[in-house]
């Protein structure tokens, strides 16, 4: 992984110092609330229902065991519910005692969030994070956010080229970019280097896909204008092949055009997707004209040279690891034979949680953070420390935060799989449910978030409790279930095969259910938002609705046919009917 130079480390420490000064001026009343707000946001501090939320950047999802330990310390020592006055809790939401604290939360954008750190302790936390190169730079606010990528970047067997060197170049280019700190709205870039899109790139403000042209030259397909929210849009391809060395020159053109022409009069119309949709080819022409100016008048100042790319690639040399595959096969066979009760679970784990690797001696292993009793993507201080130990023992000290809110160990020797499985299972992190129904994406919802219309966590919990039978889960097969507590879509409901969206009516929580969305992966087909099936449901009805949808699938499917494929073949009608049939609260024309 990228190793911080003295320049990088010092920069992060200076940023923490700068934030301390800003915080102190705000506390002293020298800096107004209005002037402080974008400063704290661009350091990751966001105000929620009970307490601030801190979003820590994990650049392109790559994190070290040492960094994970510091996150554990933050969770244990700072993420305390009892430090806050929670007596003002809104009626209708979860009882405060049920809400998790002393834990970290993995986000769909590969970052890590904390929900209970008092602002008074914020500067201390930033100093602590800076001690291992962590920070909250541009994790919120109207600026260029953390670049996300494939959790299998640099190790995926279907990779055209490693996106991490480019993601790091993007991190450096975008960090405190003086021109782009006050864009009309947030700006998210995702990059993938693989044939399979595991980074949902068409759903981003800019989606980059590495590919090779007919001559074998490396470049990017560039999409602009994707996004979720109340206007879900898929990014438009503005360049089918941009030579790799022009990446920053072209991105500067895109972001400058957006900064100049994006709407600033209406927060709901301020994302670049609205500009791209409204202006169409005019927007593309404006970007091309600006790009022409950057290349020909400015002298293409951001051109990435061969030497720069090579130097960056040198940071991402794989660790030296080998194993004897013959003995690995024997070990796995031994484990399979050893315990009859366990073998299905181990073989299922191999099937669901273990991915092939560019190095045939190695595997990528996902630790599942989707289990009953904890919110999807939540990890306690203890679990973070244990995961750090697993990374040190089995994965060269490196982990990835995945888009699906799990942790992935990228460098696991295949002969270590049985031991890793036993250790992970002991920690409750070996649930073989990756890609299955309970590997759901969920936002923190109304329990924490001020924007949310409805809660996500109790719903996620109800489903995690209901679907514990692994036979059943494996029989249902791959389903992307995505839950958002409001239309801001942090839980990516638009791209779920099954999407659940919290909506508010008369101060009550209701849920819309959508079907047929796709993140753009090969299994899910072209990126597309799901479609709402009928009126909203009451919270109490939703688990039954999910069960009815899955039951319908099992009745309708042909051998080997996935949920999504079956739905696309039959259309939504039978699913809508099945969902309507389990209405109780909303059955008597109670219009939600």
């Amino acid at each position, binding site marked *: 992984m990228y190793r911080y130079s003295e320049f990088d480390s010092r920069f992060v420490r200076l940023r923490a110092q700068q934030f301390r*000064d800003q915080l102190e001026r705000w506390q002293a009343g020298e800096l107004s609330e209005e002037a402080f707000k974008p*400063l704290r946001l661009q350091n990751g501090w966001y105000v929620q229902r009970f307490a601030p939320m801190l979003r820590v950047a994990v650049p392109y999802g790559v994190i070290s065991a040492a960094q994970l330990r510091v996150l554990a310390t933050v969770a244990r020592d700072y993420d305390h519910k009892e430090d806050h006055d929670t007596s003002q809790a809104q009626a209708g939401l979860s009882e405060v005692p049920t809400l998790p604290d002393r834990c970290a939360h993995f986000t769909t954008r590969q970052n890590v969030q904390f929900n209970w750190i008092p602002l008074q302790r914020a500067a201390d936390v930033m100093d602590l994070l800076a001690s291992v190169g962590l920070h909250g730079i541009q994790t919120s606010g109207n600026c260029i956010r953390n670049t996300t990528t494939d959790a299998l970047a640099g190790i995926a067997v279907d990779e055209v080229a490693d996106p991490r060197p480019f993601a790091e170049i993007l991190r450096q280019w975008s960090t405190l970019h003086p021109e782009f*700190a006050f864009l009309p709205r947030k700006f998210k870039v995702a990059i993938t280097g693989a044939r399979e899109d595991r980074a949902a790139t068409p759903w981003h403000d800019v989606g980059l896909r590495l590919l090779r042209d007919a001559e074998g030259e490396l470049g990017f397909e560039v999409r602009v204008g994707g996004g979720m929210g109340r206007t879900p849009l898929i990014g438009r391809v503005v360049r089918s092949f941009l030579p790799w060395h022009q990446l920053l020159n072209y991105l500067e053109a895109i972001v400058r055009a957006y900064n100049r022409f994006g709407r600033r009069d209406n927060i709901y119309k301020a994302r670049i997707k609205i500009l791209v949709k409204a202006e169409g080819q005019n927007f593309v022409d404006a970007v091309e004209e600006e790009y022409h100016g950057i290349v020909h008048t400015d002298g293409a100042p951001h051109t990435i040279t061969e030497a720069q790319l090579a130097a*960056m690639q040198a940071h991402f040399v794989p660790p030296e690891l080998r194993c004897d595959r013959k003995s690995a096969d024997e070990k796995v066979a031994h484990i399979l034979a050893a315990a009859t009760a366990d073998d299905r679970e181990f073989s299922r784990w191999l099937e669901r949680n273990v991915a092939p690797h560019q190095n045939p001696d190695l595997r990528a292993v996902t630790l599942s953070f989707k289990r009953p009793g904890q919110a999807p993507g939540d990890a306690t201080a203890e679990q973070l420390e244990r995961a750090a130990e697993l990374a040190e023992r089995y994965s060269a000290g490196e982990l990835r935060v995945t888009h699906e809110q799990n942790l992935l160990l990228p460098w696991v020797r295949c002969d270590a799989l049985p031991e890793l499985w036993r250790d992970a299972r002991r920690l409750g992190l070996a649930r073989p449910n990756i890609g299955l129904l309970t590997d759901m994406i969920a936002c923190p919802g109304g329990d924490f978030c001020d924007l949310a219309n409805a809660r996500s966590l109790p719903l996620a919990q109800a489903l995690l409790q209901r679907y514990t039978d692994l036979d059943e889960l494996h029989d249902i097969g791959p389903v992307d279930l995505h839950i958002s507590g409001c239309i801001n879509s942090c839980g990516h409901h638009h791209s779920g095969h099954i999407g659940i969206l919290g909506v508010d009516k008369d101060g009550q929580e209701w849920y819309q259910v959508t079907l047929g969305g796709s993140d753009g992966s090969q299994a899910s087909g072209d990126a597309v938002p799901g479609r709402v099936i009928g009126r909203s449901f009451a919270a109490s009805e939703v688990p039954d609705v999910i069960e009815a949808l899955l039951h319908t699938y099992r009745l309708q499917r042909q051998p080997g046919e996935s949920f999504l494929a079956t739905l696309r073949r039959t259309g939504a009608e039978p699913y809508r009917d099945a969902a309507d049939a389990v209405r109780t609260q909303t059955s008597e024309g109670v219009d939600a």
Partner: protein
Amino acid sequence: MSAAAPPLQLFLASDFAAPEAPEQRLSLPNDADPANLNLQGIGVVELHFTRFTDGRAFSQAFLLRRRLGFAGTLRATGDVLLDQLLQMQRCGFTEAVLRADQSLAQARQLLTHYPAFYQLDAWSGTTRRQA
């Protein structure tokens, strides 16, 4: 890193009187396209921040300085606050007329906080890309 930007001259709006003749000055609205300007005889371009969170003037400044090679004074006016001065300097501004409630002493201090940055600014021709 980029070569050091020229110093940013700081003023308080309450004390500031423009020294140049009005005909040497051009005041641009945020939606003006710098490419269409006639800069003949213009010594000062003023870019006005209606709100400090409206970042269009940063792009205008970049274009004036780097694209058009404007060598005169680039002045920031309006909602000009301490914590955006560094950005203004790096985008090509040479003067900042701060909102009257801001502290000049603090402003000078904040401008020296970072010895270097990752990316090019409007002034420089080389970049330091960490590798």
